[in-house]
C-alpha cells in the first residue's frame, strides 16, 4: 500500500512560503487581465501560464519564462483571484527555484560604479525589493575593505529608483535606461518640441 512520494516541481514551489495553493488555479485569466505589466510592458507576460507550467512540472519552461523575472509584486491580481492564490508569491517561489538552478534575470539590472560609490546607503533605503546591500569589498586603486553598495541581480527589478536617488551617479541601469541614454532621449525630445514651436 505504501507508495514512494516523488517531489515534483509543483511540490518544490509549494514548500516555499507564498507558493502554496498553486494547484487551486482555475486558469480563468483574471490575473492576466488585471496585470499592468502584461498590458503596458510585455505582451508575453502571463502569470496564469506560469502557474500552469509550475503545476505540470515544466521547470525549464518556467525558468525561461519572462513572467518569472518581471513580476514586480504589486499584488493587483491577488485581491481579484477567485481562488485566493497569492500569485506574486508563486512567481517569487518559481524565481527562487530558478536562481537555485543557476538561471539569472534577463533584465538589465542596476550596476554600481565601484570607482565612485561613497557608500552613503541612500540607494539601500529606496530600493523596494531589498536588492541592495552595503558590504565591504576590495576595489582596485581604492582600498582593500571599502564599504560600497552591492546589487543582488536576482532581486533587482530594474525600476531605477536607486539610479534616480544616487547623489554621485554611481549606480545606474544599463542599455536604454542608462543615465547617458536617458539624457540623449531628453535632448531628442526637446529638439522635437523646439521644432514644433518654431514651425
Amino acid at each position, binding site marked *: 500500500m505504501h507508495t514512494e512520494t516523488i517531489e515534483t516541481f509543483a511540490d518544490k514551489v509549494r514548500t516555499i512560503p507564498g507558493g502554496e495553493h498553486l494547484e487551486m488555479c482555475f486558469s*480563468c*485569466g483574471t*490575473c*492576466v487581465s488585471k496585470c499592468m505589466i502584461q498590458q503596458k510592458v510585455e505582451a508575453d507576460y502571463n502569470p496564469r501560464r506560469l502557474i500552469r507550467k509550475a503545476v505540470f512540472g515544466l521547470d525549464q519552461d518556467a525558468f525561461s519564462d519572462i513572467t518569472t523575472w518581471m513580476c514586480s509584486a504589486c499584488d493587483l491580481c491577488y*485581491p481579484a483571484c477567485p481562488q*485566493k492564490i497569492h500569485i506574486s508569491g508563486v512567481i517569487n517561489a518559481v524565481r527562487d527555484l530558478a536562481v537555485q538552478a543557476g538561471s539569472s534575470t534577463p533584465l538589465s539590472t542596476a550596476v554600481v560604479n565601484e570607482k565612485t560609490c561613497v557608500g552613503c546607503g541612500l540607494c539601500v533605503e529606496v530600493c523596494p525589493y531589498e536588492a541592495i546591500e552595503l558590504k565591504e569589498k576590495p576595489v582596485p586603486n581604492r582600498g582593500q575593505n571599502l564599504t560600497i553598495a552591492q546589487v543582488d541581480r536576482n532581486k533587482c527589478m530594474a525600476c531605477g529608483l536607486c539610479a534616480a536617488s544616487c547623489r554621485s551617479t554611481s549606480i545606474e541601469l544599463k542599455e536604454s535606461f542608462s543615465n547617458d541614454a536617458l539624457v540623449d532621449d531628453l535632448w531628442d525630445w526637446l529638439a522635437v518640441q523646439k521644432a514644433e514651436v518654431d514651425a
Partner: protein
Amino acid sequence: MVDAARHPKIDIRAYTEVERVEGFVGNFKVQLREKAKYVLADRCNGCGECAKACPIEVPNYFEMNLAPRKAAYVPMSQSVPLIYNIDMDACIHCFKCVEACGKLEAIDFSMQDKYTWEDVGAIILATGYSHFDPSLIPEYGYGKYPNVITAMEMERINNSAGPTHGDIVRPSDHKNPQKVAFINCVGSRDKRFNPWCSNFCCMYSIKNAVLIKQGHPEMDVSIYYMDIRTPSKGYEEFYDRARELGVKFIQGRPSMITEDPITHNLFVHSEDVTLGRVTELEYDMVMLNQAAIPQPDANVMSSLLNASQSPGGWFMEYHPKLRPMDSPTDGVFLCGACQGVKDIPASVAQGSAAASRAGRILHSDEWEIEPTVALVWEDRCVSAQGKKCGICANACPYGAITYETGKAAEVITAKCHGCGGCVAECPHNAITQLHFTDAQVLAQMRALLAHKPEEKILAFRCHWCSYGGADLAGTSHFDYSSNERGIRVMCSARLDTDFIFEAYRLGAGAVLYSGCHPQDCHYITGQVLGATRADRIRKGLESAGMNPDRFRVEWISAAEGDKYSRVINEMQAALDNIPREILLEEIETLRPTMEKRARRLREVPEVESAISYSDSADQAVKAKEA
C-alpha cells in the same frame, strides 16, 4: 398556481409567517402569523380600482425595481390569491382607495396581524434561495455604471409582461444595445464570496442569449465563462443551439469593467484564455449572472424546526445520496433550492419526492421508529428532586428532551433518534438507551476482556462509520491485529467516560475510541459531543499517569477500511513497544484510580446483575476447561 388554489385539499396561506413550531412527527403544532394586508380577503374581488386611485408610487420589487407600483398593489397580475395589499410603509392615509372600493368595503385600515395555531402532520421546507448582491464586487461596477445589470433585471427587460414589454433596451439611454456581454460566476466559484457553483447560471445565460438571438439576430452576444456546465438531459444540445445561432463564448473571467462616461458604453477587460491574449472589448450592455445564496433568514427557520444548516447556509439533508429530501428532524422535509442550489427540473423532482415522503406520514395511524431510544429513570433524575440540571437536554442534537426543575426530564420518543449522547452525558446515570444499556455494554466488555486483557485492544466503534470501516477492512482482507476486540454503539456520543475507565480497570491493554468524521455524523452533532468527551478522557488518563499510547481517538469513515487496519496495527505496535512487566505494573498501579473514576457505573440499575451473570459465565468456562 390557480389549480393549487382551487384544489379542495390545498390551503394556500399567502403573506403568512411561521412563528413557532412545537411537537413532533405527525403531531406538529405550528403558530402562524397572517400579516395584515389592510384588505379583507373575503370581500376583495381583485378589481384593482384601489391601485388606480392610489397616488403613491414606489419601486416594484417584482420588476427588480425597474418599474413603479402603487402603495395599494398586488405583487404581480397573476398573483394567487388575487387580493390587494396596502403597503403601510408607503401609504399616506389619503383614503382615496377606500372611496374607490366603494360599496365592496374591502379596505380596513384597523386590521392587525392574526395569530393562529394549526395542527399539522408533516412540514415541507421550500423557502428557495436569494441573490448575491453584485455591487459587493467593485471591479464590475454594478450600481455605478447604469448599463451593468443583473440577470434578474435582464429577465424582466426581456419579458413581454415586463416594464419594457419585451423591448430590450439599456438603462442609460433606453436605446437598443447592439453588443451585449454576459458574465458568469459573479460571486460564485469565488472564494472571496461563495465557493459553490450556482448550478443554473450557465443554462440561464445561454437561455437569455438564445432568446435575444432569436428576436434580434443582428445583436452581438458574448458569454464570458470559466467553465460551461451543461450536464443534464438536453442541456448540451441547447448549448450547441446557442453556438449555431452565433452566440460567442469567451473563456476567461473578466477582471474589471470600465465605462466611457459620455456614451456609457462598457469595456470588459479579460484574458481570452484560449487565445492567450488580453482583450478589452466594448459592449453596450453587460449582464452579471450573480450567485445564488441561501435566504438571509434561513437561520430563523433552521432554529424553529431544528433543521440544521450545511456550512454554506443551505439546509442540511439527512443523507446526501440516500435521503436528499429529508431533514434530520423527522416529519420535516426539504425541497428545492433551500437545500442546495438546483434548477427547476431538479426542484420539481425533489418537491414531488418530499410530498410523497410527507404523504407516508399523513396516511399512517402509527409511525415506526428505531427501537434504540432513550428512557429516563424518573427516580434517579435530580431534576425531579428539585435540582437544576438539564445536561441531557443540552446534549440532545434533536431537541427531544424537555425538562423542568421539579419534574423528571422527559424524552419525546418520537423525536429521539437514539444516538445515546444524553445517556453518556447524564452525571447521575438517570437515562438509559434501549439495546445499549450500560449493563449490556459492560457485559460485552467483561466477556471480551475475560482472558489476558493486557494483550487486548478494545475498539469502541460507532454503528454508521467506524463499524462499517472495520467491516470493510474484513471484507477487503486488510490484515489487522487479531488482538482487537470491537464493541458497537450507535454513535461515539454514547461512549460514556465510565466505559473507558472500566475497560482499563478490567486491565485492557489499549482502547480505541472511534466514530464518524464530524461532517458524516448521522446524529447532526453527535460526533462533536463524542469528540469533546474524548478530549476530556485523554486529559484524565494523562493526569492519572497512563502511557498515552494506550488510548487512541480516531475518526474513521465506512469507506476507510485501510485506515481502520492501519490504526489497529499501529496501536498493536505501540502496545508491543511497552515491555510486558511494565505494562502489567502500570495496569495494577492504575487499577484503584480507574475503579474510583468508574465507580458510578456500578450505581446503574441492572449493572450488578450483569456483573454477577458474566462472573458466573466466566466461572463456568473455567470449570469446563479444568
